């Protein structure tokens, strides 16, 4: 548990579990993820997103993405396909996420998902990133 998060202000972990940090637009309350930074960031305030939601869509990344931008420590031979998708956090926003699941064929649109963290073997140093997992 020495790993640092892959980016600041991306997610938080406390007694109630892992929550992503989104941005709520001050003018109309619209929620986005991640929290915008820079000039645009001044129009948003941080908001703690729901830790559970439903699977909106999903796929499996079967080949190693091109580097850059991909920064996995793996190579063409050692790359392991991973699932990813969108999770709808009710009344808030639909977020894109890597999905931690042993058998991607289990994934079904509408199933309950829960936020968590996972080590991402980034080139240079392993870091902590957010994931969603099927709830139960």
């Amino acid at each position, binding site marked *: 548990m020495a790993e640092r998060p892959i980016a600041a202000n991306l997610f938080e972990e406390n007694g109630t579990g892992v929550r992503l940090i989104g941005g709520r637009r001050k003018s109309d309350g619209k929620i986005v993820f991640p929290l915008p930074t820079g000039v645009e960031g001044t129009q948003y305030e941080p908001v703690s997103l729901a830790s559970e939601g439903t699977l909106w869509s999903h796929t*499996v*990344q079967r080949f190693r993405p091109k580097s850059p931008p991909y920064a996995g420590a793996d190579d063409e031979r050692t790359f392991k396909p991973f699932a990813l998708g969108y999770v709808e956090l009710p009344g808030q926003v639909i977020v894109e996420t890597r999905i931690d699941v042993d058998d991607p064929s289990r994934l079904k649109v509408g199933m309950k998902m829960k936020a968590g963290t996972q080590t991402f073997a980034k080139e240079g140093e392993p870091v902590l990133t957010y994931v969603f997992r099927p709830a139960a």
Partner: protein
Amino acid sequence: MSEVHIVGAGIHPFGRHDDKTGLDQGVFAVRQALADAGVAWKDMQFAFGGSSAAGNADAMLPHMGLTGVQFINVSNGCATGGSALLSGYWAIKSGEFDIGVVTGFDKHPRGAFNPDPEAWGLPKWYGETGMMLTTQFFAMKITRYMGLHGITPMTLARVAEKAFENGARAPHSWRKQPVDAETILRSQMVSDPLTKFMFCSPAEGGAALVLVSDKKMRELGLTGPRILGAAVRTRVNGSFEVFAPSLDVERGPSPTQIASKAAYAMAGIEPNDIDVAQIQDTESGAEIMHMSENGFCADGEQEKLISEGATQIGGKLPINTDGGCLACGEPIGASGLRQVYENVQQLRRRATGRQVEGAKIGYSQVYGAPGLSAVAILGA
């Protein structure tokens, strides 16, 4: 206001051409379009042209002739060709000009694109963790659609099977080899549920059209399809597009839905008036979803329509009669104009080997990043 007609159409075959630049292929297409109409470059009062990755289109001027013609470079992502057409259409419709050319060409490196997160205004971690791939977007859009509307993987395979069948009959296509649905289904999985044969590839090619006013057409003694309606639209809130770390909970229409509605309204026709359609098929699922987004059927009806062969040549609504992007590949700047080229051939009854009998109204729609769609409707 003038009516606008297409009296000449040219195309450089799509595919891989190691000995030619993208520009060479654009010049080839323009020369062919001029010859098709029997007009000369010096007669052109305007040109609109674009490429995404093969340089400035106006670099063709020294090749075509330094006539002083107004040449405007168009750059509008995947709708570059469609936008060049729209610009030429307006130039004539406004009454300002009587004759001109629109063109698009491209040449891309092999394999998937590798975008820079910062250029897209996205955080680095998004690309670093492997979530910035267009293939994933297409896979997730069709996965949700299949779940909600009962589309099966076999239907995805049938779309690709038809594309390769039609491509084998079109002189300008890249893929000439028919591939059966079982082979397509069993080929390497790229991003579930889409296999290798269900995706189009970046490619090379060029296309060009000669546009004239109705007055000029009579004067020259020419004929050609009329542009009944043309529209480009960009994304609105709630539209699902590439490279989106989050989406609005409140969903909205796609840019294709709104461009399509606008073009039908301009043309004063309904989707069931269309005889032949060329619609964006970046992958098999896109063709299925675009059938509905362009108004040709309700969500979910594709399953039955495609299994009955409705979208094949000879079916109720033939779609992508030259094999579309799946069989032609996707040179971004040229792709939208290829669709219009194919409709011109269909409406002029020149689509040898793939002719849709009695085709009077042709529809084309190109869609792409970062969320825009261009529609053109032609009448024979």
